[in-house]
């Protein structure tokens, strides 16, 4: 087990984590550590508990057992180091607000009670929108954005949080190839500046290309480690069980055609 000091330098350490919604266990005795400065994929079939893992790290669901530390301390103490991109479908996009306003919400935590966002927050938000290529949409009502644009806005909001660790729940869902590229570029930039990114990802094909580290999850952790070591055919099959008839032919091997594992998953 890690020494106390090592734990301090670990962005996320999950120990013996079990989570149950009502009567059904969703995560069982999960132990994972996430290394600093890496792009980390959480991969697994629908209902595997990927979102739940992120939510339990962010203290959004009660834990049945175990604990989570962020750089050695509780989430509560380290909240300002964390940025979050929820699943896009989790909000009502007909809400009366503008793109810029949503991005500013990323700074509400640091603003504290009662204080309103001012000029400085506005500038930061515009800068973040610029980074995701959405500056010209700053004053758009959010219902007028396409799915990919909404996703970029959520990313910009997370950027505005100015965090050390980012958690992103399916940032590529319903996004076209161009936007996916743009989002990956931003993620890489973040990684270069030493941030840690934890991303729920569905496309097995692109895991080796995008990510350094992978956590294969299906209620329990099936495998966790550097992509080239643990992202093997065997581990994927174990995570997806019998539900995957097609296997990406050459996962774990250097080249070869890959297929979307999820295409037959549901």
């Amino acid at each position, binding site marked *: 087990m890690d020494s106390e000091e090592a734990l301090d330098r670990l962005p996320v350490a999950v120990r013996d984590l079990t989570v149950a919604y009502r009567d059904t266990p969703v995560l069982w005795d999960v132990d994972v550590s996430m290394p600093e400065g890496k792009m980390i994929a959480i991969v697994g079939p629908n209902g595997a508990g990927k979102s739940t893992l992120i939510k339990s790290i962010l203290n959004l669901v009660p834990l049945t057992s175990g604990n989570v530390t962020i750089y050695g301390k509780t989430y509560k103490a380290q*909240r300002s180091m964390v940025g979050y991109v929820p699943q896009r479908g989790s*909000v009502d996009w007909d809400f*009366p607000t503008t793109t810029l306003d949503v991005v500013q*919400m990323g700074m509400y935590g640091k603003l504290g009670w009662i204080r*309103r966002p001012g000029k400085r927050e506005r500038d930061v938000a515009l800068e973040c929108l610029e980074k995701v290529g959405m500056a010209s949409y700053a004053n758009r009502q959010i219902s007028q954005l396409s799915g990919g644009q909404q996703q970029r806005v959520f990313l910009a909001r997370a950027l505005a949080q100015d965090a050390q660790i980012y958690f992103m729940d399916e940032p590529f869902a319903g996004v076209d190839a161009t936007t996916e590229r743009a989002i990956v570029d931003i993620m890489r930039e973040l990684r270069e500046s030493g941030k840690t990114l934890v991303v729920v990802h569905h496309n097995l094909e692109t895991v080796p290309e995008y990510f350094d580290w992978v956590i294969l999850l299906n209620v329990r952790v099936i495998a966790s480690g550097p992509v080239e070591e643990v992202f093997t055919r065997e581990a994927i099959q174990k995570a997806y069980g019998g539900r995957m008839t097609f296997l990406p032919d050459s996962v774990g091997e250097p080249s070869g055609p890959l297929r979307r594992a999820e295409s037959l998953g549901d």
Partner: protein
Amino acid sequence: MLDLLHDVIFDYTLRNVALGSALLGIVGGVLGSFAVLRRQGLLGDALAHTALPGICLAFMLTGLRTPLVLMAGAAITGWIGTLIIIKVVQDTRISEDSALGIVLSVFFGIGIVLLTYIQQSNNANQAGLDRYLFGQAATLVQSHVITMAVLGGAALLCVALLFKEFKLLSFDPEFAASIGFPVGKLNVLLTSLIVIAVVIGLQTVGVVLMAAMLVGPAAAARQWTNRLSVMLGLAALFGAAAGVSGAMISVTASRLPTGPMVILCMTAIVIVSLLFAPERGLVWDAVRQRSSRRRILQGGPG
């Protein structure tokens, strides 16, 4: 017209009626906006109905008809009703909408039982509790208006101070929790403010129609703007306009109960907003559709 204006300023009753109904419109509009955005429009309906037994019980226990006492009773049973709805939805297989219907109708039934009990027990002081069913603005006196102003002012102050917190809570509660907002407590606070908005309106609009004073102004205001702050302002304005005009009609033309008049004025505003608001107006949809059809018929894009 000028006469009426003169009266509103100088006539004691009319002044109270105008102020009281404006207040209820403003507070209902602002808090109703949050209720509507959080898809809790019908919770307001349930809350208003659950207030009836509270009003009766408060009267039975204290023998007083002071608005503050009755409002307190209404708020307490309103809260109990809300808690039951939450509990039933969370822990039984009953759906939210049945839970609302159950609490609303059963509490109203209890209210009717208590009302008839008070009426037959021959209490000389009892007269007038049933005005809470449909509202009777003409019975507003200055002390009522002051009570309403204090409560409503406090509620509006809360919204002004916690505007950004309530906005995020309504838009993305999960994100709000992730950055450390005490989401549970904010929820309780916002619901309590909605209770206050309902309670303020009871004497003027009545139990039965109060829900519309939460939903109507918000739905109308949403049509005209894409910004929450503007929406709150407009909802307050619409609420006040409907409140004052409805109450004025009711007081000047005798025998018309206030609640229905206020709601009819409100409905007019809602219809105009739904149809003619720029951008979101339904009429423009129809116009756009027709002109694009014509373009297609005439061959090729215009």
